[in-house]
């Protein structure tokens, strides 16, 4: 006796001419830039439902920071967005300085602005490299890493680290720049604009690149605001919001630069914004080098790193600043003013905000990190819905997310 196989195996029968199925992309996937998992509901190649899942890199920084002194918690910020650690450090320091009312000398402000922009270029280079690689342009990857290497060498020259810098300190920066560093940086600035044009010739006239980016992943300005997008993702949709202009910190109020804006809100517009931002960063760094004022690099009331010239509150000067001084600080209560502040800085990914509550102790009572990547990933569900699965890769790349920052 023979029976039709389809009955015994219970093969799903296509519903009309479509067939829905679900697919798990990640968490181990080269195009998710970290450990991001995306659960997809597909109809053929069209995404019906896209559910990003994060948390694989959750290390509890907010809880950890509550148990560390302000100076100790600085190193945690290196591990947020590890591609632009310098920008995270600066964001943290700016926020703590506002919270505790610590002044920063002008030279340190300029140095921070300078390294912050170097960090932006280095982050954008890595973004361009991997984004292009995801879409299929291998050459750009190698070109970008060539220039990024120069920047990493410069960072190493500056503070000894290539990835996790902790170079800015609360109240200033750790070390002064050497003339060799400035010369090397100047050489980089001289060649870099030509290099950006080199990348552009590789992809801007590339028909495949244009087909995969123009009109894909569209977000209107209103949508972008509602989704909470910031940085190049928001500016690509034509909303003029750059914290460096809106609420300047560091030396941004003293240097001249423009904020590039897109209008279409697609992947191509975000790409153009970031490319223009690199040109602007070069401009900012150049001005920082030219205007760099002499003077101290750490403020007089910076905690933990250097004992203050004029003793403040109950801090006692000690010969061993890293040993005894720190212990004294930990034991002391009611050292600082209490209150809360929210301070945001413009990191390469978008708006990185720190919401601090101090209750007078030398540790933050609460530290909330508003990480742009977390919000950008949540926006993926809206942006990718209804598009093709191949464009999901382009969208993830275009949102420029780093999972370390998202999961904290």
């Amino acid at each position, binding site marked *: 006796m023979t029976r039709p196989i389809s009955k015994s195996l219970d093969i799903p029968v296509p519903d009309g001419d479509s067939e829905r199925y679900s697919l798990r992309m990640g968490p181990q996937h080269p195009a998710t830039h970290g450990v991001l998992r995306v659960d997809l509901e597909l109809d053929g190649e069209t995404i019906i439902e896209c559910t990003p899942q*994060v*948390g694989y890199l*959750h290390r*509890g920084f*907010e*809880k*950890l920071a509550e*148990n560390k002194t302000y100076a100790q918690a600085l190193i945690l910020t290196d591990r947020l967005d590890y591609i632009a650690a310098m920008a995270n450090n600066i964001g943290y320091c700016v926020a703590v300085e*506002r*919270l505790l*009312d610590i002044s920063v000398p002008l030279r340190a402000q300029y140095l921070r602005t300078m390294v912050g922009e170097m960090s932006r270029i280095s982050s954008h280079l890595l973004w361009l490299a991997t984004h292009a690689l995801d879409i299929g342009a291998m050459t750009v990857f190698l070109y970008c890493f060539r220039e990024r290497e120069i920047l990493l060498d410069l960072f190493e020259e500056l503070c000894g680290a290539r990835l996790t810098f902790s170079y800015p300190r609360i109240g200033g920066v750790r070390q002064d720049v050497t003339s060799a560093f400035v010369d090397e940086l100047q050489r980089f600035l001289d060649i870099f604009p030509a290099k950006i044009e080199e990348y552009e010739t590789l992809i801007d006239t590339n028909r495949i690149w244009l087909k995969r980016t123009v009109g894909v992943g569209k977000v209107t300005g209103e*949508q972008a*605001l*509602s*989704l*909470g*997008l910031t940085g190049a993702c928001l500016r690509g949709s034509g*909303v*003029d*919001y750059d914290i460096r202009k*809106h609420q300047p910190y560091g030396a941004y109020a003293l240097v001249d630069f423009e904020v590039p804006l897109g209008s279409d809100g697609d992947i191509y517009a975000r790409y153009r914004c970031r490319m223009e931002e690199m040109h602007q960063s070069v401009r900012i760094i150049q001005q920082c080098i030219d205007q760099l004022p002499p003077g101290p690099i750490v403020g007089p009331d910076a905690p933990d790193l250097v004992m203050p010239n004029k003793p403040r509150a109950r801090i006692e000067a000690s010969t061993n600043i890293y040993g005894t001084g720190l212990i004294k600080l930990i034991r002391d209560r009611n050292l600082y003013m*209490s*209150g*809360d*502040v*929210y301070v*945001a800085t413009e990191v390469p990914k978008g*708006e990185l*905000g720190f*919401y601090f*509550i101090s*209750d*007078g102790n030398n540790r933050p*009572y*609460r530290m*909330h990190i*508003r990480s742009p990547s*977390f*919000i950008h*990933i*949540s*926006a993926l569900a*809206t942006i990718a819905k209804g598009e093709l699965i191949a464009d999901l890769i382009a969208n993830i790349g275009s949102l420029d997310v780093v999972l370390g920052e998202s*999961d*904290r």
Partner: protein
Amino acid sequence: MEQVAIVDRLRAEFPDEILSSYTNQGQTAVIVRPGRIVDILRWLRDTDDLRMNHLRALCGVDNVRRKEPGLSRFEVVYNLYSIPLRHEIRVRAEVGDKDPAIDSVVALWTGADWLERETYDLFGIRFDNHPNLRRVLLPDDWVGHPLCKDYPLKGKEEWAGMTELLEKIKELDQHGFDPEGHAHGQTAPDQEDDL
């Protein structure tokens, strides 16, 4: 608009909702009751001369060890910014001591979705009318809410999923997948303290 002026407008519009206000380091905050939070934030967003269209941050706070008197144990903090008018304000909503809950603002900002999920995940604050309120950073079967002040830094117990995973690895090791026990099955005695 000056931040203090915004507070005055808020007081005039919602006299029963505003509990107090203060300014710290040039940033003004209002403490409000949770009941009409969606109305307050919608008013701040849609009023013509305020236009607070950017929700910068949304997070929870556990006040149990704070020295200031009169605060409820949990609160939700909204940091708002107006991109066209360049002013900001902070709204702190008191959400009670036990079983804290507040209305969701996802209807106003889609981006609040994950921020509220995160707050629920780490503090246990419930957001009513949220489309999909479940944990986001921690696994679904995690016990407790880590950012509460009574949650110990090192956690309370091993997560059930981790225990299962270790058991599974041990079981697989018996079948020769890792005959020398390099992976997680056997730990050297001096490492046991770390685990």
